[in-house]
């Protein structure tokens, strides 16, 4: 439940059992309201179909025995290396600068596995496959990637894990 919904709920009559409640700080009223509604929650729930896939993805991300290190802010000289990519019909291509200023590229036509896929899926797989290839070639090490796309579905997939 988002903050706005909490505010609406807390502002309703339910949250005020007595006149003094109006003087309670926000967090206290939130706790009180939460405990009042906890009895509505089911004890058991049915997992959604994607739950297992999500758990497997999390298990993969948490696979190392020690916590992964994260580059929060690089402390070396910055350099902007641009890459481009696009998918059209059954074809795809992308290119990017390597640190040595050589140009790397990948292109080709899709196999039959994407014949029934949408153009959004083709756009997204091109972006994802290109990043994976860059990773394999070591072009993402100590790099921060800014990915720009005109495809809002790819953007949604990146942030939500699904469209």
């Amino acid at each position, binding site marked *: 439940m988002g903050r706005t919904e909490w505010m609406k709920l807390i502002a309703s009559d339910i949250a005020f059992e007595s006149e003094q409640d109006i003087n309670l700080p926000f967090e206290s009223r939130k706790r009180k309201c939460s405990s009042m509604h906890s009895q509505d*929650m*089911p*004890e*058991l*729930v*049915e*997992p*959604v179909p*994607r*739950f*297992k*896939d*999500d*758990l*497997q*993805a*999390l*298990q993969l*991300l*948490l696979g190392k025995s*020690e*916590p*992964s*290190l*994260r580059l929060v802010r690089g402390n070396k000289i910055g350099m902007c290396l641009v890459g481009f990519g696009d998918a059209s019909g059954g074809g795809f291509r992308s290119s990017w600068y390597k640190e040595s200023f050589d140009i790397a590229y990948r292109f080709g036509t899709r196999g039959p596995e994407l014949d029934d896929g949408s153009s959004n899926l083709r756009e997204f797989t091109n972006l994802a496959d290109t990043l994976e290839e860059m990773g394999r070639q070591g072009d993402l090490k100590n790099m921060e990637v800014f990915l720009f796309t005109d495809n809002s579905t790819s953007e949604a997939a*990146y*942030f*939500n*894990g*699904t469209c």
Partner: protein
Amino acid sequence: MTTQTKWDRAKTLVTEFLKDLEEEAGTQLEFKRLEKAVGFLCHISRTYPTMFPYLKGFYNTLNG
């Protein structure tokens, strides 16, 4: 990076849920346990944002 304790706890939570699902098909999960787990994993995903999209399965289960 996060602490070893938190990392291990996150791993245990995920592994336990996976074990539950794999042991018995069509199993139902405890609401409160899921709620607690997703709260902690959400905390961890502030350090590791790549984990965040995969919490959707938790939220869809809780709110479904």
